[in-house]
């Protein structure tokens, strides 16, 4: 008896297999010389520094809004003094990493995907190979390493900005000093809140970089192909971020 696998399932499995192979090649090529240090540093600047304004603005609004939404309920139960602790834990453990990763995937991932896709379509990747350059190392390894390294840095900055937003939110209702607010936050934060949250963002960054590079690097001919790749990369990278988050939460629970 033969089981017929639906086309969509077969395509998904093929894609997953190819993506795994692509990720394997990333480690194989990334650990062997020649190291494209200059391009890697340039990508860190592009990926990290240039996405800071958007990430910062979003984080600030997120902290402010979260606090304003919590305030009435916390006042109702008479625990408004616990707002810094609650917001702090929520942001550091979950909201900061997830939201930053999703924004990062949208902004940086899409630009990586579109850049590599158009380079593929216009034969620039072939030209690179003819010029004695390993395009995989130059384009994929540098970008995926940069996203892996820069996302945790952005998350830490976003967390800090978000907490500052929360501090301003608290001050809308009652005057609190910055020192007192942050003391309340850090009194309730433990290493187990901070360290796993930062570690998982390395994986988020890797997932964003590798998925978008894969989609761009293998986008089919024509601008339509580039658009289709970008579309599917948004979906895949977002879903993978949530799956990785779920796994990270389970692991953290087991460890604690």
């Amino acid at each position, binding site marked *: 008896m033969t089981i017929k696998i639906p086309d969509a399932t077969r395509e998904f499995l093929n894609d997953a297999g190819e993506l795994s192979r692509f990720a394997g090649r990333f480690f194989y090529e990334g650990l062997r010389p020649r190291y494209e240090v200059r391009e890697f540093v340039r990508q860190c600047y592009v990926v990290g520094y240039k996405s800071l304004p958007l990430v910062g603005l979003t984080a600030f609004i997120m902290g402010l809004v979260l606090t304003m939404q919590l305030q009435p309920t916390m006042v109702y139960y008479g625990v408004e003094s616990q707002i810094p602790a609650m917001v702090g834990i929520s942001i550091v453990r979950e909201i900061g990493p997830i939201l930053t990763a999703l924004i990062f995937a949208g902004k940086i991932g899409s630009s990586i995907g579109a850049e590599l896709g158009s380079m593929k379509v216009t034969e620039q990747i072939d030209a690179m190979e003819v010029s004695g*350059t390993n395009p995989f190392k130059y384009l994929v390894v540098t970008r995926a390493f940069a996203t892996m390294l820069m996302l945790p840095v952005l998350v830490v900055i976003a967390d800090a900005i978000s907490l500052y937003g929360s501090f301003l939110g608290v001050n809308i209702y009652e005057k609190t000093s910055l020192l007192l607010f942050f003391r309340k936050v850090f009194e309730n934060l433990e290493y187990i809140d901070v360290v796993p949250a930062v570690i998982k963002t390395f994986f988020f960054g890797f997932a964003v970089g590798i998925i978008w590079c894969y989609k761009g690097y293998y986008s089919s001919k024509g601008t339509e192909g580039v658009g289709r790749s970008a579309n599917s990369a948004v979906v895949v990278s977002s879903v993978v971020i949530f799956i990785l988050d779920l796994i990270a939460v389970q692991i953290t629970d087991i460890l604690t």
Partner: protein
Amino acid sequence: MSSEAVIQIKGLYKSFGANEVLKNFNLDLLRGESLVVLGKSGSGKSVLIKCIIGLIKPDRGDITVLGQDLLSLDHEELDQIRQKVGFLFQSNALYDSMTVRDNLEFPLRRHTINLSQPEVDDMVMDALNNVGLGHTVDMMPAELSGGMRKRIALARTLILRPEIILYDEPTTGLDPITSLEIITLMNVIQEKYQTSSIIITHDMKCVKIASDRVAMLIDGTCYALGTYDELNASTDGKVRAFFD
């Protein structure tokens, strides 16, 4: 033109799934010669030229470039061969995110590491002046016209002083006047640097002006080979279809 073959292709076979693109293709490029490969769109011309530069691996057959068996070379040896073989892409393939200077420096920096900045600058300006575009050195590719981009791509191809240049549809997408300028420039380069060239095209004006010999790629094989005048005099229907 000497009788020494700088590229020898024997029994080349390449298919994509059920689509057999090249079937027992044979061809020699002689030193100093300008050989045009003529064929319809989709006949496998670009596949052939990409096999010669090692971008596509053929299923069967032999390709010898400057005395070396291309298919047995490792990555490093292939890079060394590529220093001697320039490739002008159909879409120019200029790096959008780099200036003209950086585009030209890229292959130079990659292939030759022991060059000082003044030497690199001289080589870049020399290559740009060869194509009459010295003033564009700090411009971005997006600021250039189609003809200028083609010339810059040609300058990038020339910068390593290749012995062989492969042109993939050099006049596609250009107006007749610019096409003629590019073909003339190709002839000037051929004469000045004594390069050997393979030109992939279906532009008959390019065939007439630029070719020493013409190879017709039909049904995956080298169907006919001769000078422009010889093929123009042919009575074979498949050959005549290009000349009539």
